[in-house]
């Protein structure tokens, strides 16, 4: 299956057929999720309506880590197996992951002010998430700094794999250190601690965010494949003009 998808032409055809369905399902789930958040989910007994920020903050945080894991596996695919689409996937994932990390940090800050009395605290979870954003920005800068795509992919892969050490730090920071940020409430060994009336809309919003992210990733990969074709053809044209001039 992965070998078959490694062919960019086959990938373009398959992703072109899948994209409208994924986008449509994402829009539908987003509408259902937002309806539940605004009209059926109860206010929290302590936080009141401010808990509504959770329904975008938490999915954004999950997707920040999800896209970093996609980049790390693509980096492995690029360095170890030289998978033709691995660096394309890596490059397309970076801006999406960075955007969700930014959403997570800003909405967390906006949630923190009324609940904790401060926009920011240098605790382990918040700081490791800020480090995650800086790693994403570093990766984006490195992609732009090196013009030749294969060389850029190798350098970015190494940086991505080094930065992957931050993923477990983000995830377990609330367990390893005493933090202002609350511990995990959904993915726990003893089951979620959130009531179903809040958990269901949260999971629907998370699924909607994931599908939006996947659609953007597929679309970004398709565009990157086209960009590489354009680059190859532009070089071919320049070579042809050189031959004619000689």
């Amino acid at each position: 299956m992965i070998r078959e998808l490694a062919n960019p032409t086959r990938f373009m055809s398959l992703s072109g057929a899948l994209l409208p369905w994924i986008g449509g399902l994402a829009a539908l789930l987003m509408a259902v999720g937002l309806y539940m958040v605004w009209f059926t989910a109860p206010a929290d007994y302590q936080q009141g309506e401010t808990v509504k920020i959770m329904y975008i903050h938490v999915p954004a945080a999950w997707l920040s880590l999800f896209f970093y894991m996609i980049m790390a596996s693509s980096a492995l695919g690029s360095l170890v197996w030289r998978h033709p689409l691995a660096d394309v996937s890596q490059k397309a994932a970076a801006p999406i992951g960075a955007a969700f990390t930014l959403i997570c940090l800003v909405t967390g800050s906006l949630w923190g002010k009324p609940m904790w009395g401060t926009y920011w605290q240098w605790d382990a979870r918040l700081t490791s998430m800020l480090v995650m954003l800086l790693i994403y920005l570093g990766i984006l800068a490195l992609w732009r700094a090196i013009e030749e795509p294969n060389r850029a992919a190798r350098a970015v892969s190494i940086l991505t794999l080094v930065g992957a050490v931050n993923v477990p730090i983000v995830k377990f920071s609330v367990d390893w250190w005493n933090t202002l940020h609350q511990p995990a409430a959904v993915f726990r060994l003893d089951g979620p601690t959130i009531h179903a009336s809040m958990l269901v809309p949260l999971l629907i919003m998370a699924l909607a965010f994931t599908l939006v992210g996947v659609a953007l990733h597929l679309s970004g990969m398709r565009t990157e494949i086209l960009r590489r074709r354009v680059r190859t053809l532009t070089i071919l044209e320049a070579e042809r003009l050189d031959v004619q001039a000689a």
Partner: protein
Amino acid sequence: MSHTFFIAFSYVLTALVITGLILRAVIDHRIQVRALADLEARGIGRRSRRG
């Protein structure tokens, strides 16, 4: 500031960022499609290397 401000700001910002990502994806894709069509219209194709 009321809590409504923090909630509304969070949702508006998220909507803006996601809309920005979608617009960027659509515009970038169109630019590449046009560039590719332009090159192919000028007779620059992969097969032209062999020909």
